[in-house]
Each structure stands twice: as structure tokens, then as C-alpha cells.
């Protein structure tokens, strides 16, 4: 079969990324949007757009029936879930199948199996893939969780069984202080996933987070597309990702690739997925433990695209339509070095607190080897309702030092004003000597917090630029750009409001 029209069940940069891939492939795209997003750039990026409800995700981007209805009403033959939201939701994949919509991702039963940490661990173990000691205790009371932590050993990590993205995750160092941490993890787990079940595992000291991109088709082919190192994290969420990893020797890289393919094969995996590993130690003796499988396209997929030269989203379309993988393992190679920097609306000096507000001035950098994936425009706003990711800057260069310089230069040429961002923080990170040396681990940001958060006094040039700013020379706060994006319409029947932007 061929896909003719795809509904993109997401928002922001990933919705735009998918819409572009659709356009290149000659597939029509349908965007969905909440009330908060009616003027958002992703709405214009697609050929058609459909409103799906209120700003709160639960009433729009997480509403399975509304999205399936929207796909059917707009004559779509497939749905791309992006990442986050419903991307790993087996019920959604099943609802798509029942509505004769191709779900662009793995089959519902694979989502189900890999979504359960218990089943996923059993499957990994049976495939011979090493895992971190851990348990979802049957006794989910506080004392049951504490007992499980004592079994796997302190320090232990308590996290949402249903989860991901660092939400509902706490480090427990002893039984005495566990109570409040367990309660907080459970509250976040319920808020984020609607399920307070907690999982407990041993915390590996100073690990690296290294993941392997895998891809399977319905003809039994499974390949890996090498690693991404994502050790630079804050609040258990990735900030900077790169490939190749400075920690992998050819022997360990090949062993991890084999393990990832074995895991994917055991899971009968189809489409794009990622096996996450913790890496302990370095050199040929480094050990790796499988953490989990992410059954979706990852935020950081451009890193893999940059070093391997493939288009993962277009390959997703091919495989979803029943085609064979466009590449064999032997054809896949890593070239040069790629680094992705996630630009977040957050205040690093204040615990990386998410920020919401207007983008008074927003100008993306443009240079050789620099790719910007963004869902924002100048004059728009970063909404309190959704993830505070503003943009991803992915650079490619012939070597790691050149990639670091290119990334820092790109961020210096990426002014975002009106809201605090992690741009200055990331530049300091990229230019930290231990980052240059490749001495990474998941506690890197905490370990170097003082240096990374250091602030220079405001230079006279900045005061002068501020003083000289007149009405004519600065971007005023009330630009109309965002609200003049398209014709306003609020009809009663949502399906009557499908917008076509032409092609």
C-alpha cells in the first residue's frame, strides 16, 4: 500500500518535522491543535488542520477518540503519533487499527509488552540482554517500596512504572528518608501517567546513558543505527545528545548493537525504536545494562540522521506502508560527529524551573552543518500547558571538537528574548573542559553546577545596548505576528473547520 494522507497526533517541533517528511514524500498531512495552539506554527506546517479540544492535553492531544475521529473525518489512512502524548499508548494504537488507520509505529501488542517494565525486563533477560537489578513490588505501600529498595540495594531509584521522561522519579539513599520521596514520586506518576505504580531499581554510580537506535520492518529485517550518548541530563531529562559516544570502543559498540538487535528481535519489533542502556566504566571492559525500550521516534533522532545520513521519519512511512527497510546493516555507517542541544524555556539558575511567556525576539541560526527543529516563531508564546522545549539545534561536523565549536557558535547566534532559556547554560556546558575531554556521566550537570551556573557581571556593552534601545530599534512586546497567522473561525461543528493551506 501507499500512504496518501497522514494525521499527525502531536504538536510543536515534532509535528512540523513529520509534516515536512510528508510533503517530501508526496503524502498529505493533517495537523491537530488544541485551543491554546490555534495559532501555533505546526498548524500551518500541515496541509490541513483540525481543532481537537481544550488546552489541557487530557482534553486534546491525549484524547484517543477525538483524534481517531479526526483522522477518519479527514480521510486519513495513517496516524503518526510523534513522541510523548499517545506515542507509546497501546490503546491508541489499537483504536487506530480498529478504525483501519495505519499506526506509524510498532504494533499495539509490542507497545503493550514493552510498556510494562516487568514484561520488558523478562523479554530482555530471555534475549540475553543484561539489565539493571530492579523490581516492581507487588506490595505498593510505602513499606513495600522501601523493602524493594533494600533488596536491590541503596542508592535506589524509585520511578513511575508507566513512565518515562524523568517524571515521577526520585533517588532514595536510605530507608529513613524514603517516605517523602516515595510520596512525591507517586504523586508525579499519577499526575503524568494516571498510574501511581512504582518501580525500584539499583542506581549505577556515575553511569553514562548510551542508547541504540533500532529499526525493524514487517519482513523480519532488524538493523541498528549505532549509538547516541545522552549523559548530559538535568532532572533526569536529556539536554545534550551526541553520536558517536566518546566512551565506546569498536568492540563495545558492536556488542551493544548486537544486544539491541537481539532485544528488538525478541520483541518482534517493527518501525523505529530505541534501546536505552546505562554504561559503567570505559574501554573494552565497559559494562552495559539495558534500561528500557522506547517504542517511538525519539526527540534526539536528528543526531542519528546526522551521522548516518538517513531520514528516520521517511523510513517510518515506508515500513508502516508495508515496505522493506531502505538500508541493510552493512550499508549503515557513522560519519563525523553530531551534537544536539535542546533549547528549553527554563531557568537553570532556579532549579531548571520551566518558564512560560512571550518570545519577544526569536531568531534561528543558519550556518553550514546546523539544523534547527523548532515549533516556535517570534511573537509567539511558550505555553504553560505543554513541554517547555523551544527548539533543537543539531550540528554535524567532521570531528567532535569541530562539532562542539559549531554548536557553541550556533547557540551564540540564536537570540531568544522575553523568556529565560538554557542557552547560556548550554554554551558553558559545551565549552567546559570536562565536556571537551568527553568525561561524561549522568551526574555531569550536578557535579559541575557551580561552573555551569556562574554568571559574569553585566558588561558595559549590554547596558549600552539596553539604554540605546528606542521604540524604533527594539522589538516591542506586543507584536501581532502570532495572532495574525490565519483567519479566525470558531464554528460549532469541529469537522467543518478543517483548513486547507494548499501546497
Amino acid at each position, binding site marked *: 500500500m501507499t500512504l496518501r494522507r497522514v494525521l499527525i497526533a502531536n504538536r510543536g517541533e515534532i509535528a512540523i518535522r513529520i509534516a515536512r517528511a510528508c510533503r517530501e514524500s508526496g503524502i498529505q498531512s493533517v495537523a491537530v491543535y488544541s485551543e491554546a495552539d490555534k495559532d501555533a506554527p505546526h498548524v500551518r506546517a500541515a496541509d490541513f488542520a483540525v481543532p481537537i479540544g481544550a488546552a489541557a492535553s487530557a482534553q486534546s492531544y491525549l484524547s484517543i477518540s477525538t483524534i481517531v475521529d479526526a483522522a477518519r473525518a479527514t480521510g486519513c489512512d495513517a496516524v503518526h503519533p510523534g513522541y510523548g502524548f499517545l506515542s507509546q499508548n497501546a490503546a491508541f494504537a489499537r483504536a487506530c487499527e480498529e478504525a483501519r488507520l495505519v499506526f506509524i509505529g510498532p504494533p499495539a501488542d509490542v507497545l503493550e509488552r514493552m510498556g510494562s517494565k516487568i514484561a520488558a525486563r523478562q523479554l530482555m533477560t530471555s534475549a540475553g540482554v543484561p539489565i539493571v537489578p530492579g523490581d516492581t513490588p507487588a506490595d505498593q505501600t510505602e513499606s513495600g517500596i522501601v523493602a524493594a529498595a533494600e533488596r536491590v540495594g541503596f542508592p535506589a531509584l524509585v520511578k513511575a512504572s508507566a513512565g518515562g521522561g524523568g*517524571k515521577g522519579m526520585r533517588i532514595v539513599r536510605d530507608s529513613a528518608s524514603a517516605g517523602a520521596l516515595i510520596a*512525591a514520586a507517586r*504523586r*508525579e506518576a499519577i*499526575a*503524568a501517567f494516571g498510574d501511581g505504580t512504582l518501580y525500584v531499581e539499583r542506581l549505577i554510580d556515575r553511569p553514562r546513558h548510551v542508547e541504540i537506535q533500532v529499526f525493524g520492518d514487517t519482513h523480519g529485517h532488524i538493523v541498528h543505527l549505532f549509538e547516541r550518548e545522552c549523559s548530559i541530563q538535568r*532532572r533526569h531529562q536529556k539536554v545534550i545528545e551526541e553520536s558517536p559516544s566518546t566512551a565506546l570502543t569498536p568492540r563495545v559498540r558492536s556488542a551493544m548493537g548486537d544486544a539491541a538487535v537481539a532485544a528488538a528481535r525478541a520483541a518482534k519489533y517493527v518501525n523505529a525504536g530505541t534501546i536505552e542502556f546505562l554504561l559503567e566504566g570505559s574501554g573494552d571492559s565497559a559494562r552495559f545494562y539495558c534500561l528500557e525500550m522506547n517504542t517511538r521516534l525519539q526527540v534526539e533522532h536528528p543526531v542519528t540522521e546526522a551521522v548516518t545520513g538517513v531520514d528516520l521519519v521517511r523510513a517510518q512511512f515506508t515500513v508502516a506502508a508495508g515496505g522493506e527497510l531502505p538500508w541493510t546493516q552493512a550499508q549503515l555507517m557513522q560519519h563525523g560527529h553530531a551534537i544536539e542541544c535542546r533549547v528549553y524555556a527554563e*531557568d537553570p539558575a*532556579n532549579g531548571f*524551573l*520551566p*518558564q*512560560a*511567556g*512571550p518570545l*519577544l*525576539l526569536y*531568531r534561528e541560526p543558519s550556518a553550514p552543518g546546523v539544523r534547527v527543529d523548532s515549533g516556535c516563531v517570534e511573537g509567539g508564546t511558550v505555553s*504553560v*500547558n*505543554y*513541554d*517547555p522545549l523551544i527548539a533543537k539545534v543539531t550540528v554535524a561536523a567532521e570531528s567532535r571538537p569541530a562539532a562542539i565549536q559549531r554548536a*557553541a557558535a550556533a*547557540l*551564540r547566534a540564536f*537570540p*531568544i*528574548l*522575553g523568556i*529565560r*532559556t538554557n*542557552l*547560556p547554560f548550554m*554554551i558553558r556546558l559545551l565549552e567546559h573542559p570536562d565536556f571537551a575531554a568527553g568525561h561524561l556521566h549522568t551526574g555531569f550537570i550536578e557535579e559541575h553546577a557551580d561552573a555551569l551556573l556562574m*554568571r*559574569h*557581571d*553585566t*558588561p*558595559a*556593552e*549590554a*547596558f*549600552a*545596548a*539596553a*539604554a*540605546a*534601545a528606542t521604540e*524604533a*530599534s*527594539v*522589538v*516591542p*512586546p506586543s507584536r501581532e505576528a502570532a495572532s495574525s497567522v490565519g483567519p479566525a473561525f470558531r464554528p460549532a461543528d469541529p469537522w467543518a473547520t478543517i483548513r486547507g493551506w494548499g501546497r
Partner: protein
Amino acid sequence: MARTLIVRDDRGEHHASIDDNGRVSIDDVVTPVVTVAPGVVRVGDGAGRTAWVAAAGDVRWVYLDGEVFEIDVLRPGSRRRSASAHGLLSAPMPATVIRVDVSPGAIVRRGDTLIILETMKMELPIRTPSDGVVKAIHCRPGDLVQPGVPLVDLE
């Protein structure tokens, strides 16, 4: 007639003056500024460096060499009260109150968690900046609170 302004960040304030030829001085040191495009200037001696500037009320946001500066630009005499000088704690962004851990009269120490907010699916503790006594609470669990609106009054 040169115009005189006060430019201020959270570390201190300086005198700025702009003469009739548009020449800018900061504390009597001339610092050239040339506007290149809306929101874009070249600043400093020689070729200068590129800076981006945006305005929000009295605040100027400046991006220069990978650093962001938030600078108040005020006319002399129109000085605003410093934001950190009062004992009101507020939400840094729109959020939902999920828990209130103290009641009026409670003695609190620097760093104590008073309120837990939730925003973007993450918990956000509001902690005391200094030792003190809780004078009043202005929110309840379930409230949707806006930035700048007081949540707790500390003494």
C-alpha cells in the same frame, strides 16, 4: 540636550547618557551602539559585537556573546521598588497549587517547603528565602495561580 537614564540589573545600577548624536555613555565611558536592524545592534569599539535587544515595559532583554541580560531602563527619579525587598512569595509561572504545608503563625526556616505547585506535569516546591513567620496564606490546594500574585506572606 543629552538624555540621562538609570540602567540597572540585580547586581547594581549605572548612569547612562545619550547625547544628541546618539552616542551612549555608561558611567561616563563612551560605548558606541549602532542599530543594524530591528532588535539588532552592533555595540562596542571598532567593529563592535552583535547584540539583540527586546523591550517589555521598563525591562530590556539583551543577548550578547551567548549571555542574556535583563536590564531595567528607568528615568532618574522614577525608580521602582526592588522586587526582592518584600516578604511575599509568589509563583514564578502559572501553576496549580497541589499542597500547602504551613498555616499562618508557623515559624519557618530558610529553605523550608511551604507550598507545592504543579506545572508542566512537574512538582515545583515554593521554599522560604529566609527564616521567618508565616503571616498569611493566599492560596488553597486546587487553585490556579498566576505569576507575581502572592501565595504566602512572610514576616
